[in-house]
């Protein structure tokens, strides 16, 4: 379980997150939603300790990750798989080596076992034949899927997706959404999806946490969201629904 308590973060005295608290339950898919620049990605980076809070605490399975040594933090990070916004594939390596990288680095698997596991991961993201291609030879959607294969190669307990569908066409976005949903079910992992794409949220999330102007404005299930009369949340959802053509639930 992940708990975030009274998290404040400011950059050069400019507050980005203000008193954010949140609990993420084991096995659920939580969407962190909000407008661009609302602090979603900053919150995500606090969950894996890539950023230190100005104040507040972040617990992963009961451990305050800001009060442990760097090596202990690295042990905790190995329970996470992270899909970064741009994929963050290593451009000096081909797709196969990108997916194999965590396996080569952190396991003692034989070359044959690594080959089999990498192929399994590439099959899971429906890209069985891209192993020899460099990231620059792949489309944006394919890069994200290879990055997803890399993120799940060590079978993490937690998978974080940072804007998994941004910049993708609707059809590819649907494919990514289906993959996230399938992976959550198959791997029984806790999934945290940072997004402003309400179509994704409605397709894959069990709960949503809405950040507005650096505050945790609203948290609830997707059903609660449809029933909510919070004007700010409704405006955000409505703007997205209008954009993607989903009829309003209100």
């Amino acid at each position, binding site marked *: 379980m992940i708990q975030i308590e009274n998290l404040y973060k400011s950059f050069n005295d400019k507050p980005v997150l203000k008193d954010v608290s949140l609990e993420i339950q084991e096995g659920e898919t939580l969407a962190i939603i909000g407008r661009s620049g609302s602090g979603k990605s900053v919150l995500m*980076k606090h969950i*894996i300790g*890539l950023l230190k809070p100005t104040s507040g605490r972040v617990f992963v399975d009961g451990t305050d990750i800001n009060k442990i040594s*760097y090596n202990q933090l*690295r*042990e*905790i*990070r*190995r329970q*996470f798989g*992270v899909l*970064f*916004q*741009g994929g*963050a*594939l*290593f*451009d000096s390596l081909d797709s196969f080596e990108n997916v194999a*990288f*965590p396996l080569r*680095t*952190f396991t003692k698997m034989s070359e044959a076992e690594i080959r089999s596991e990498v192929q399994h991961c590439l099959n899971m993201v429906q890209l069985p034949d891209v192993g020899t291609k460099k990231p620059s030879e792949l489309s944006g959607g394919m890069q994200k899927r290879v990055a997803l294969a890399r993120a799940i190669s*060590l079978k993490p307990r937690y998978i974080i997706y940072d804007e998994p569908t941004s910049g993708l066409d609707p059809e590819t976005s649907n494919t990514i959404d289906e993959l996230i949903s399938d992976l959550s079910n198959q791997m029984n992992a806790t999934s945290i999806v940072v997004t402003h794409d309400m179509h994704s949220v409605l397709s894959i999330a069990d709960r949503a946490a809405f950040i507005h102007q650096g505050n945790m404005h609203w948290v609830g299930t997707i059903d609660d969201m449809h029933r909510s009369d919070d004007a700010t949340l409704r405006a955000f959802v409505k703007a997205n629904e209008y954009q993607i053509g989903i009829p309003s639930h209100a």
Partner: protein
Amino acid sequence: MAVSSLAITTPIRNLGLYVLLLVKAFGSLGEFSLYRKNLFTQMVRTGIDSIPIVALAAGFSGAVTTVQTAYQLVTPFIPKSIIGSIVAPSLILELGAVVTGFILAGRVGARIAAELGTMRVTEQIDALEAMGLNSVGYLIVPRVLAGVIMFPILYVFACFVGIGGGILVAQIGGYLSIGEFVKGAREFFQPFDPIFGIIKSVVFGFAITTISCYKGYFTGGGAEGVGKATTEAAVMSCVYILLADLLLAVLLL
């Protein structure tokens, strides 16, 4: 007031970050087995791939120094072998290391800063950290070790090619014979000279790679930031080569 205080605090902050980065990098040497493969890759990129440009620069430096020395010493009272006595120590003591240093500040330093800077702005460094890897150790230790190992080798290579260039132009230009050149070079040879050159090349290798790693690792601001970091890495490396050159000469000669 604020500007003057920034002028003082910024260099101190940068120095602190530089030192902390190196402490974090070399504090992770216990995980060297993770970096070994990357070390060999970096040694090839830093050393082997630099051979052509180092050979070109050193060869021409030796040739030009020979021609200019011959031009300045055209007198029957000075034996021609003196040209070898001047050219060879010049290359061993100064030109071999400094020319190689400048070439590599541009070639290796700029490449390191651009590589790490691009990795920073495309979140590849965050990806390494998120996997649980020590990104500082993984990225910086192999590059610095490759510099410290390969620069002295390139220096020795540069000295041989530079002296060879000098001999070749002396022979072709009719300034003096190979025998006279070698006799002059051996006459004033001091065993400490190449040791001094190797010490310099180790220091230059460390300075260039650590400055470039620092600039690249802390890049911010997208493509513009990568360009700025790359330029600063090359320029600062050259400046620190000159400073280290003077300091080592004062301390060791």
